[in-house]
């Protein structure tokens, strides 16, 4: 295995930093370590392939936007909209993240060890074999999974009781599923969302995701492999049907 390319990002503007990453991947580098990252935006944007990028520090907004393949592991918090319109690959965030995490994500995985802000997983969508997955170890603010059209959001609520206590969960959801540890108060559900029982079959489906998440963050998965979850799904696949009449 070749030595990873190490880049010291201290004081660097994001454009030269990202250009350096892009050129390194184009020249065949498979692993890059970015040290002293502090607010540089757009890391991993639009990158293809199977490279691994280690980010030491706090990257700026739109981390991994349009990314299609690589894995970014962040040892720090992430800012606004990591995984925005991401196509494939993974973001592993050893920390918390800001608003609009995984916005319009269409494939791949975003794992956040800590908490996320507002509108997490908004308008995630799936198509054929592409099914995006967002897992949150801690809790989420309001409007989790708003307009969600596909994929999976899982909130483990570690250190939080209840796992989510902000409102508007799944407002306008018309596809996909939101799974939250423990019970979720009905009054927190947004318009168009409904709560259904979490079954053994659901557990079977979601267990590999729980195990993978726990493995990445060195958490014992055993306490999470039961059916003590709430599953939130669309009340209808056509939330806006019935609102209109024709001229």
């Amino acid at each position, binding site marked *: 295995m070749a030595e990873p390319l190490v880049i010291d990002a201290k004081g660097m503007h*994001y*454009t030269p930093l*990202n*250009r350096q990453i*892009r050129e390194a991947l184009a020249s065949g580098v498979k692993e890059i370590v970015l040290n002293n990252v502090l607010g540089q*935006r*757009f890391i991993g*944007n*639009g990158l*293809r392939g199977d490279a691994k990028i280690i980010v030491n520090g706090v990257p700026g*907004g*739109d981390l991994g*936007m*349009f*990314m*299609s393949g690589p894995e970014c592991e962040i040892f720090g918090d992430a800012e*606004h*909209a990591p995984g*925005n*319109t991401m*196509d494939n690959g993974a973001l592993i965030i050893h920390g918390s993240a800001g608003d*609009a995490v995984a*916005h*319009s994500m*269409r494939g791949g995985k975003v794992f956040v060890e800590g908490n996320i802000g507002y*509108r997490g997983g*908004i*308008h995630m*969508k*799936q*198509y054929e074999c*592409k099914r995006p997955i967002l897992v949150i170890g801690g809790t989420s603010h309001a409007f989790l999974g*708003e*307009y969600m*059209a*596909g994929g999976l959001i899982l909130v483990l609520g570690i250190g939080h009781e209840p796992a989510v206590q902000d409102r508007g969960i799944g407002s*306008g959801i*018309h*596809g996909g599923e939101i799974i939250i540890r423990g019970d979720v108060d009905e009054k927190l559900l947004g318009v168009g969302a409904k709560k259904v029982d979490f079954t053994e079959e659901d557990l079977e489906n979601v267990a590999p995701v729980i195990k993978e998440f726990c493995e990445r963050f060195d958490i014992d998965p055993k306490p999470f492999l039961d059916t003590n979850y709430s599953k939130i799904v669309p009340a209808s*696949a*056509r*939330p*806006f*049907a*019935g*609102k*209109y*009449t*024709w*001229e």
Partner: protein
Amino acid sequence: MSLGSVPLKYKISIDRDQCMKCMRCVDNCSYGVYRVEDDKILIDSRKCTACHRCISMCPRDAINLQERPVDYRSHPLWTVEAREDVINQARTGKIILAGMGNAVDYPIIFDRLVLDACQVTNPSIDPLREPMELRTYIGKKPSKLEFTKNNGDIDLKTKLSPNLKLDTPLMIGHMSYGAISLNAQLSLAKAVAKTGTFMGTGEGGMHEAIYPYQDHTIVQIASGRFGVDIDYLERGAAIEIKVGQGAKPGIGGHLPGEKVCADVSCTRMIPLGSDAISPAPHHDIYSIEDLAQLVRSLKEATNWEKPVFVKIAAVHNVAAIAAGIARSSADAVVIDGFKGGTGAAPKVFRDNVGIPIEAAIAAVDQKLNDQGIRNEVSIIASGGIRNSGDLAKSIALGADAVYIGTASLIALGCRVCGNCYRGLCPWGIATQKPELVNRIDSDVGAENVANLIHAWTLELSELMGAAGLNSIESLRGNRERLRGYMLDQGLLDVLKIESVGA
């Protein structure tokens, strides 16, 4: 109690002496107006949309169409439409959706603007004899140029931003595959490739049939992010962020599941038959700073090689918003006026929200000039451009180029019947039904659209020549060459033009 039926909108009649019973009307009407019983063509006028397909196909001119054959008691306030909308909503309790653009009889400012021509002094130019420079570059222009001397040569030191090179200041606006058919989109793509200009893909991805023409496309990223991935972004010659649309400012859109067929589902990257919902805002843009972040994100993802446009609906504070956009790293601002077309929009928005494009162009151009940042963005105007006169006036008011939409569809057969949302377009434009889509031969369609672009370009050259101008730059923002006819002082001030005679 039942409200009963409302009167017919259109009445179709056949001149039976002229009719040769060729049955072309029966075959062509996708709305089911005609049927044959006992060798006689029977008519159900209630189904007619005035699309004119039957009339255009009748070899004997035997079909007649009358609008509003039944009179209501006339009333200046309670128009027929006002009464029928109330009846519709009393029945359904729902929001009324309508097709095509604004259908209210607002004054058309273009028709109150007149262009100038040379007489005696400063002689006019004959475009047949003299070259007319219509080439237009869309994108940032440097505020100054720096050079270095290199062994007697002069090298340009200033790094130029990517620009789109147009042979004529006229592009085709964004109409997605889904909203229009593949053959319609393909016709437009072939036409812009032929005429050296560009077309928008709309929100909804790019079908592989368009790939051969991708260098002439502007790909769109809207709030639903449908069909958007890195390959799509790299395919376009430019990228456009759609914030708003003139026909429905401030609201999102949704493509109903029944229009999401296999091919549309594949292009948009959503499951077959699912609703494609575009939220009202981009949920990663809640401020000008967020917009700048998306603009730069798109540039980073495509290596700063592509111009990024931002499209907004023309609304009250359009000039201030455009000034914000000009500072966001965007390369062009697209302003869509309230007469812009649409496949479907809530009627109350279509007819009541937004401002006319003429005022918006002038206000934006002026604001950007006042702030010394006009070179930072090009202005693309759209929403109700009907002919080369509107095109020339738009440029004289300050636009760099225009987008046309409805006009390009009329070149494919559209008769502006406004029933786009029904998915039964007999011209094969606003439909996904294969038997209707196949009515468009994309080579013929491309020729018609290219003819239109060519004709307007010729007329624009003539208008410029008559005004003694031989380059489009000399017309751009040249309000001295416009006069207002019967416009009030307030509007003359906004447009920064004088009255006729002044």
